[in-house]
């Protein structure tokens, strides 16, 4: 299993965390794990919605309330993204 790539999108407003994550996913091999760190609360909803639209799978979701950050991990799909 490949090591997890971390996309640090803390301090960025929606939809930038999803855009950074999508850019990382475009360059990643199928099956790669990507973790995005975000402080915008919309990321908690938008990362899973993006993953569903693109056929990726959300495999982890954590919220650190003290730090105000969300950490979401997706597994990049083996298929070409649906248009």
């Amino acid at each position, binding site marked *: 299993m490949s090591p997890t790539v971390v996309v640090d999108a803390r301090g960025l407003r*929606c939809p*930038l965390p999803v855009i950074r994550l*999508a850019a990382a996913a*475009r360059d990643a091999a199928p099956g790669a794990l990507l973790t995005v760190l975000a402080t915008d*609360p919309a990321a908690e*909803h*938008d990362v899973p*919605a993006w993953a569903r639209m693109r056929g990726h799978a959300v495999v982890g979701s954590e919220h650190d309330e003290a730090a105000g950050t969300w950490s979401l991990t997706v597994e990049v799909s083996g298929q070409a993204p649906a248009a």
Partner: protein
Amino acid sequence: MARRAFEQALDDGWADPRRLSTEGRRARALLDGARESLAGAVGARTEEVHVAPSHTAALHAAVLGVAAGRRRAGTRAVVSAVERAAVLHAGEHAGLDVERVPVHRTGAVDTEAFAAALDDGPTALAALQHANGEVGTLQPTGAAHAATTARGVPLIVDAGASAGHVDVGAAWDVLALDPRDWGSVPGAGVLVVRRGVRWRPVAPEDEDRFFPGGPSVLAAFAAAASLEAVLADRAEEDRRRRALVDLVRTCVAAEVPDVEVVGDPDDRLPHVVTFSCLYVDGEALVTELDRAGFAVGSGSACTSSSLEPSHVLAAMGVLTHGNVRIGLDRETTRDDVERFLAVLPGAVARVRSFLGAQAL
């Protein structure tokens, strides 16, 4: 129409309807006529209809009054996760444990989960909107009302987004309507409380137990007159606007890349259409469209004063960013819609290029 009714009512409705003077009696007659007309429109008795100062005030009075009347019956409120903020906040304000029942991806509440939640503990009240105004999805109020009736729990139905556009039906115990949504003047909301529902005033004693101080007779009359007018050609307007909504749903999905049209495709309001675009900042898109002459709404966080994303879109599990909500009013023509559809793909592409979000 509402404006004309309002102006006409100025002659007879400026006096205090509580006074026994000739002018006061005239105002009283105008108000009673408005309540009778509103009652007829929703299949209620005149004495069950109360005119509020606003839709928000009507929803607050519905939740707080039923919670007070059923204090001994329960301390919980069972509501859908996509109710209007006024309902959710009023439940918390009343000291109830507000259980938010999940919705499907379409925005419709899960009826089995709704019924099951009623059995989780003593329940003072349940609330389910007739339709969701953000995404247009109609809610299964019939099934919800059957479940609440079987358990003796009153169901509050917020028909603020649907009254005047579709039939609100009879599956409710307490009903709230928003005259502004059918094009009336500001200053009135409508609360209907079926006889037999335990409702207790939460404000100090007043002649008007529901809305102390009484309503604006002018706004009440305008609300009733404009509702009669929109109901007169509702079927025709329904057909016309539904066709335009279908056009928007089809064209947006076909011509804008990476877009999700949200809300139920069939069980829906005739005039609301909503979609979310990936990699788009909702505020920038609303501004772009405004520049092109189109006033649209958005549930994206960056467009709200609270900077919180729409709880409706979040509960549905759809994108909260890049969201656009279009409400087609009676003046919107096919030509307007076609012009909008012509500028939309370019507007979305421009916002994406500002954000460096191409070829993702």
